[in-house]
């Protein structure tokens, strides 16, 4: 393992990987992952979530393994060293597009939520631009500000899990049973749906050089994924106890409608506050992938990160105006899901194999 390519004053302590991974995974996926999961496997979704969490943990382990064996810790250089210069750069561009699409999906999804729940009349493009200006402002603080945002978004919003305990008053455990009556293939379909909401961890590939003593942060990364798995599990279990399965399939955002039964002594309808506070949760989901994309673009195109950030933001805004309230968004979502599988699961595996083979080949030569 080589020494880091980033100066120490820009790095963050390894503890922050816990927050970075978690913040990237909890975003808009948690709002409606239950619907798809219940459609494929009804009450056994929790098994699918556990398996998905385990597979993500495995991927994290593989990523750290990759970085341990790689000659450098800049991801764009690793792709080039495994696949050669041109194919490597092409793959880097694929990753840039993938990370930008992650931000775009979060933006479109959250805009949709706001339009339905809060204000129908806000022009989506304007709100997206304001959010992107916020993201630009965050980037001017360097990676430390981004890590800080991941930290604050977890710390300031996790108290909302009290809702899960509040709704238990209106749910019945017997809705959760029967269990274990689905076949293996259905389970695998469920795992696919469950792992989609956990896909944000891919940006670890790009911010790895910014972690001090990066290999020691592996346990924090695993803890982060564990926390996300637990959170997804809790939300899913509460949802299937609260909603009957027919009702769940009818609801577009089960997690939010769950909140609408909460009544506090001084606030009658808590869900509007929750939707406003959700902004704090999605800002890292937009900022971190965009940062990853702009950094990789900086390395591929050899310009400053500020330029690439502005270009990517404008690109996202343009795509955004196509997608808002359009059915093409569903198709786009599916494409991004599949490319996520390929890029994260598939390519990492290939890269590890390629790296090991290359090492053996180099050894043979010497």
């Amino acid at each position, binding site marked *: 393992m080589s020494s880091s390519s980033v100066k120490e004053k820009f790095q*963050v*302590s390894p*503890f922050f990987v816990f927050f970075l991974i978690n913040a990237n995974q909890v975003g808009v996926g948690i709002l409606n992952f239950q619907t798809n999961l219940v459609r494929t496997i009804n009450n056994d979704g929790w098994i699918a979530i556990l398996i998905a969490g385990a597979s993500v943990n495995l991927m994290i382990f593989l990523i750290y393994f990759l970085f341990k064996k790689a000659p450098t810790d800049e991801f764009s250089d690793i792709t080039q060293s495994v696949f050669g210069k041109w194919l490597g750069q092409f793959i880097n561009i694929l990753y840039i597009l993938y990370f930008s699409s992650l931000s775009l999906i979060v933006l479109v999804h959250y805009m949709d939520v*706001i339009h339905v729940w*809060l*204000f129908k009349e*806000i022009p989506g493009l304007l709100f997206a631009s*304001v*959010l992107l200006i*916020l993201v630009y*402002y*965050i980037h*001017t*603080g360097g990676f*430390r*500000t981004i890590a*800080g*945002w991941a*930290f*604050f978004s977890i710390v300031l919003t996790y108290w909302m899990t009290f809702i899960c305990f509040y709704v238990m008053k209106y749910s019945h455990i017997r809705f959760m049973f029967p269990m274990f009556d689905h076949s293996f293939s259905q389970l695998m379909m469920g795992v696919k749906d469950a792992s989609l909401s956990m896909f944000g961890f891919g940006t670890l590939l790009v911010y790895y050089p910014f972690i001090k003593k990066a290999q020691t942060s592996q346990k924090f990364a695993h803890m982060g994924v564990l926390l996300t798995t637990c959170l997804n599990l809790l939300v899913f279990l509460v949802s299937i106890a609260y909603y009957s399965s027919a009702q769940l399939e009818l609801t577009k955002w089960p997690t939010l409608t769950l909140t609408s039964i909460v009544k506090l*002594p*001084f*606030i*009658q*309808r808590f869900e*509007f*506050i929750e*939707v*406003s*506070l959700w*902004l*704090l949760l999605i*800002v890292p989901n937009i900022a971190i992938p965009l940062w990853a994309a702009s950094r990789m673009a900086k390395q591929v195109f050899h310009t400053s990160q500020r330029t690439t950030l502005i270009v990517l933001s404008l690109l996202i805004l343009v795509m955004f105006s196509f997608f808002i309230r359009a059915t093409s968004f569903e198709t786009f979502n599916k494409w991004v899901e599949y490319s996520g599988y390929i890029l994260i699961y598939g390519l990492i595996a290939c890269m590890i194999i390629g790296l090991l083979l290359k090492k053996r080949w180099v050894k043979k030569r010497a």
Partner: protein
Amino acid sequence: MLKKNKSKQKDPNSVFEALSRSSDFINELSSSGGFLYRISFFRPLINGNLLHEQILPFIQQLHLTPTLEELKEHIPIEQAVITRDLQKVEEALHRGSIAVRIETDWGKALLLPIEEKKGRQVSQPEIEFGIISAQEAFVEGLDTNLNLLRRRLPTPDLKVVEHTVGTLSQTKVAVVYIENIANPQNIETVLQRIQDVDYDQILDSNYLAQMLYDVSNTIFPLFLNTERPDRVSSGLTEGKIAIMVDGSPHTLLAPTILLEYFSTMEDYNMSWIAASSFRLLRIFAVIFSIFATPLYVAVLTFHYELIPKDLLETIVASRYLVPFPPIIEALFLEISIELLREAGSRLPAKVGQTLGIVGGIVIGQAAVAAGLTSNILLIIVALSALASFVTPIYKMGSAIRLLRFPFLLAAQVWGALGISLMGAFLLTHLMKLTSIGQPYLEPIFPLRLADLKGSLIRPQLRFLKKRPENLRPQNETIHRQKPKQGRKGKNDFYE
């Protein structure tokens, strides 16, 4: 007894000649015992008694032409300097020295510092008043301040480094730190930045503070300014660096963190439970002060469904007479409270009381009766104005008062979502702030659990074993706890 006939003669030295054009500069040529000498000084700056009692009698009783070295040996004034350096002479004259020159060599002068300092006496702190703590505050003179400080820290490690800043004002700036505790990198940064300051007049420590800031377009104070010597001395023992400016009763402490602006010295004088509760109360008050009015505007303008059904009638009934939308009401009230505060801070004491009553009671009551505002909003605005004064540091209080306005506008534009968005911008801004290189949001953001327990609550003193990590002190332990003789263990309860 200066002979007048020779006083009008021109001084061969051009510097002294230039200075003599000022009518308070005395540059008398006199003779006694057969030799000519000149004594030059600024009359308002020197201690006349010392001149008449110690220096002049001695010179006048000489019969032979003395050398300056002889004079230096015999005149009982310390720090006397013989020099040819005109720059130094000029500087010294401006600081209250007298220059004695003998005809044998008009170019060489003996500088005797006999400065008289005139200024306030040490008195009570005006701004950071404490109920059960010491009532001494810094004054304008640097030496008095250093006196107050050194008495509290009689340790040889306390170092003072003096600089002069300001091309016209030549203000003395003293950087104070404890050598074995403060981080050398911080010291170097502070000294370097002070040396880089290039301005004509530094009137106050807060001027200097603005020039030393890391980031200049922020409303948050990045250096803690205090007029209490006990606060400075406790800061120094933690590892902070104090910057004292001659002419200003406020001392700057660097580096600071956001949470420090909510702690007072009194916290350490009370029991830890009381102190922790009050500290938490202050933090809550600040949050209330920033968010209460914007939330009122947001809920009433956009989110009527959030109001509990029992409160609905009260709120609507209170707005019954008011013709304006909530944002106008809120802005009107906020601006009038700001006006009251601004005017109140400039009123002389006798007029101030009456006007305070007029402003507070009459305007508030009349506004409600006239139907310009609702009484609920009046309560909220008054409480949040009051809550913004809980921070002991004035600069932080004004930052909080200002922060309310962007949130109000954001609430009007996008409701609760706008407040959330503005909060996101504020958080990002706070995350980027640094105070001489140390992050402003420590110990929350670069998470340091050990410091966190000392910042949010005030734990028992015996738990504060180490100095705060954010200052990266060299010497970490404050005290070693002697193991207490166990009272339990031998017998149950009493006996």
